[in-house]
C-alpha cells in the first residue's frame, strides 16, 4: 500500500489523539530526541487537554443530573401526599384545604381539556399557515410573516395572561359566549357542553389562549418539515396537473406525517405545562364541570395559585404531587415528540 509509510503512527496509537502522541515524541519513530523543556511543556498541554475534556464532560453529565434532581426532588416532596391518600389521590375530586383532603382529578381534567381545546384549534390553523408559508406565500413576504408568527412564541406567558384577563375574557363574555349559549341551547349534548352563564373566564377561554400560544410551535415545525420535501416530488405532482391543495394533501402531508405529528406533540407538551396565562383566566375552581364555559383549574394553575399560601405539610406535598403528575405527563408527550422527530432526522440523513 502506498500510504503505508504514513499510517503506522495512527495504527500504533489507536485512539490516542495527535496531541497525546506529540507530547511523547520519543515514541514516534525517527523523532528528534526530546529536550526536557519541550517535554514538560507538552505534558502541560496534554494535562490541559485532559482537564478541558473532563470539564465539558462533567457539564454534560450535569444536564443529566438536573433531570435526575428534578425527578428525585418531586418524588421526595410528594411522598407525604401519596402516603396519606394512596393511589386514590389521582382519581379523587375533593380538594379541601380546611379538612386536609386532596385529590388530583379536577386539575388533571382541566389540564387535559384545556390542552385538547388548544390543539383542536392550533393544529389545523398551524398546519394551514405552514402550507401558506411554504407553498403560497410570495418569497419577499416569507421572512416577515414567518417572523410575525414566531413573535407569538416570544411573547412571555404572563403577557398572554394579563391580556386574556382584561381584554380577551371580557370580549368573550360580552359578544361570543352569549352567542354560543343561545346557538346550542336546544341541541342535546352541546347544550351541556356550552351551558351558561357567560363568566368570560373559564376552561374555554384558557383553551383559546393556549391555542394562540402553541400555534407558533406547530407552525414552525410543520414549516421545517414541509421545506424538507424534495422539490422533485412536488414538481412531479404539479406536472401531472395536480392543484396546489392536491400536492399538499397527497404529496407533502403523507411525506412529512411523522414530523408534523412530532411538532404537534411538542406543542401539546407546551400547552400541558403552560402556567401563567392559564392561571389568569381559568377561574381557579377545583371542580369538574360538563360545561367548558365554567371556571375550572389546571395542574400548573393550582400550583402557581396556592403553593405560597399552602399551610401544612400535606397541602404543600399534594401540590408537589400535582407537579410530579404534570411532569410525568409532559415527559411522556415530549419524549414521544422527540423520538418521532429523531426518527425523521435519521431517515433523512
Amino acid at each position, binding site marked *: 500500500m502506498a500510504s503505508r509509510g504514513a499510517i503506522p503512527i495512527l495504527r500504533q496509537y489507536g485512539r490516542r489523539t495527535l496531541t497525546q502522541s506529540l507530547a511523547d515524541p520519543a515514541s514516534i519513530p525517527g523523532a528528534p530526541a526530546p529536550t526536557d523543556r519541550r517535554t514538560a511543556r507538552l505534558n502541560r498541554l496534554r494535562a490541559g487537554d485532559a482537564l478541558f475534556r473532563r470539564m465539558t464532560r462533567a457539564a454534560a453529565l450535569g444536564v443529566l443530573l438536573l433531570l435526575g434532581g428534578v425527578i428525585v426532588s418531586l418524588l421526595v416532596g410528594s411522598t407525604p401526599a401519596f402516603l396519606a391518600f394512596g393511589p386514590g389521590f389521582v382519581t379523587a375530586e375533593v380538594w379541601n384545604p380546611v379538612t386536609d383532603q386532596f385529590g388530583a382529578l379536577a386539575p388533571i381534567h382541566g389540564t387535559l381539556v384545556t390542552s385538547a381545546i388548544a390543539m383542536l384549534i392550533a393544529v389545523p390553523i398551524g398546519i394551514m399557515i405552514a402550507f401558506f408559508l411554504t407553498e403560497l406565500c410570495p418569497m419577499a413576504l416569507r421572512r416577515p410573516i414567518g*417572523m410575525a408568527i414566531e413573535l407569538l412564541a416570544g411573547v412571555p406567558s404572563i403577557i398572554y395572561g394579563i391580556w386574556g384577563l382584561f381584554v380577551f375574557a371580557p370580549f368573550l363574555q360580552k359578544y361570543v359566549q352569549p352567542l354560543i349559549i343561545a346557538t346550542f341551547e336546544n341541541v342535546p349534548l352541546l347544550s351541556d357542553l356550552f351551558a351558561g352563564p357567560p363568566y368570560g373566564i373559564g376552561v374555554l377561554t384558557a383553551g383559546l389562549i393556549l391555542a394562540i400560544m402553541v400555534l407558533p410551535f406547530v407552525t414552525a415545525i410543520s414549516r421545517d418539515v414541509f421545506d424538507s420535501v424534495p422539490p422533485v416530488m412536488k414538481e412531479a405532482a404539479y406536472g401531472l396537473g395536480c392543484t396546489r391543495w392536491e400536492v399538499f394533501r397527497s404529496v407533502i402531508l403523507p411525506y412529512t406525517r411523522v414530523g408534523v405529528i412530532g411538532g404537534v406533540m411538542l406543542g401539546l407538551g407546551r400547552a400541558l405545562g403552560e402556567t401563567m396565562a392559564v392561571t389568569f383566566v381559568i377561574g381557579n375552581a377545583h371542580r369538574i364541570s360538563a360545561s367548558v364555559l365554567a371556571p375550572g383549574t389546571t395542574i400548573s394553575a393550582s400550583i402557581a395559585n396556592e403553593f405560597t399560601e399552602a399551610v401544612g405539610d400535606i397541602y404543600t406535598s399534594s401540590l408537589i404531587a400535582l407537579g410530579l403528575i404534570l411532569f410525568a405527563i409532559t415527559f411522556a408527550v415530549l419524549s414521544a415528540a422527540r423520538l418521532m422527530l429523531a426518527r425523521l432526522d435519521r431517515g433523512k440523513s
Partner: protein
Amino acid sequence: MTGTDQLANPALYRRRARRNRLAVALAYAATAFGVGWIAVILAVLLYKGIGGLSLAVFTEMTPPPGAAGGLLNAIAGSAVMTLLAVLIGTPVGVLAGTYLSEFGKHDRVSAIVRFVNDILLSAPSVVVGLFVYEIMVAPMGHFSGYAGAVALAVIVIPVVVRTTEDMLNLVPDTMREAAASIGLPRSHMIVHIAYRAARAGIVTGILLAVARVSGETAPLLFTALNNQFWSMNMNGPMPSLPVVIFQFALSPFAEWQKLAWTGALIITVTVLGLSVLARSLTHRR
C-alpha cells in the same frame, strides 16, 4: 388524470378547482388569523401600557395600594437575578454543548444528554420552581434571590446547550483539521478556533436564554417570592418584574393594574427586542 379525462368530465375538473380555491382561501385566512393575534396583542399592550410610561416608572419603588409609584425595585431585582442566572447557566451550558459537539459527538452518553436536554428545554417552568423550592428554599427555610436565580439558571442551561452544540456543528471540520495540523492541542483548537468561529451563534443562544428568562414568572413565584421594597439582599425575598405584574394585575386597585400594564409593555419590548437582536446576529452571517 389525463387531459382527455378533464375534457370528458368538466364537472370533476371544476370540483377540483373549487376545492383548491377553498383550501388556498383557508390558508390565507389562517395566516391572517395568526398575524392578526400578534398585531392585536401588541396594539393592546401599547394602548394600555404607554399611558403609564414615565420617568417615575424607572426611578420610584412599587407603591402601596392607592399611591403613585414606579417599578424600579422590580426591574432591578429582575436584572440582578437574570444576570446571576446567566452567569451560572452560560459556562455550564457552553461546556456541555462543547462536549456534545467536540468530544462525544457520537457516543451513547451524548445521545442521552441530547435527549434529556430537549426535554428540559420544554419542561413546564412551574415544575422547575418546585424543584428549586425543594432543594433550596425548603432547606434554607426562607425564600431568596439566590433561589430565584438558580431556578432561572435551570431554564438558561438547556437553551445555551442546544445553541452551542448547533453552532459548533456549523464550524467546518477543515478548520479543526488545519488547527490540528499545526500541532495545536485540542483544547486550544476549541477555545481559539471553534469558539471564535461560532461566537455570534453562541452569543445568540445566550441572548435567547436571557429573553426567555426575563419573562418567566412561574419559577420565581415560590423561589424569590416578591418584595415591595428596594432589596439587593440576594439572601432574602426579591422582587421581579413578572411577579409584580402578576400581583398587581390581579389586584383590585386601579393604580396597580395600570402599573402592571406598563410593566407588561416593558417586558414585552425587552423580550421581543432581545430575540430580534439575537436572530439578526445569526442571519447576517
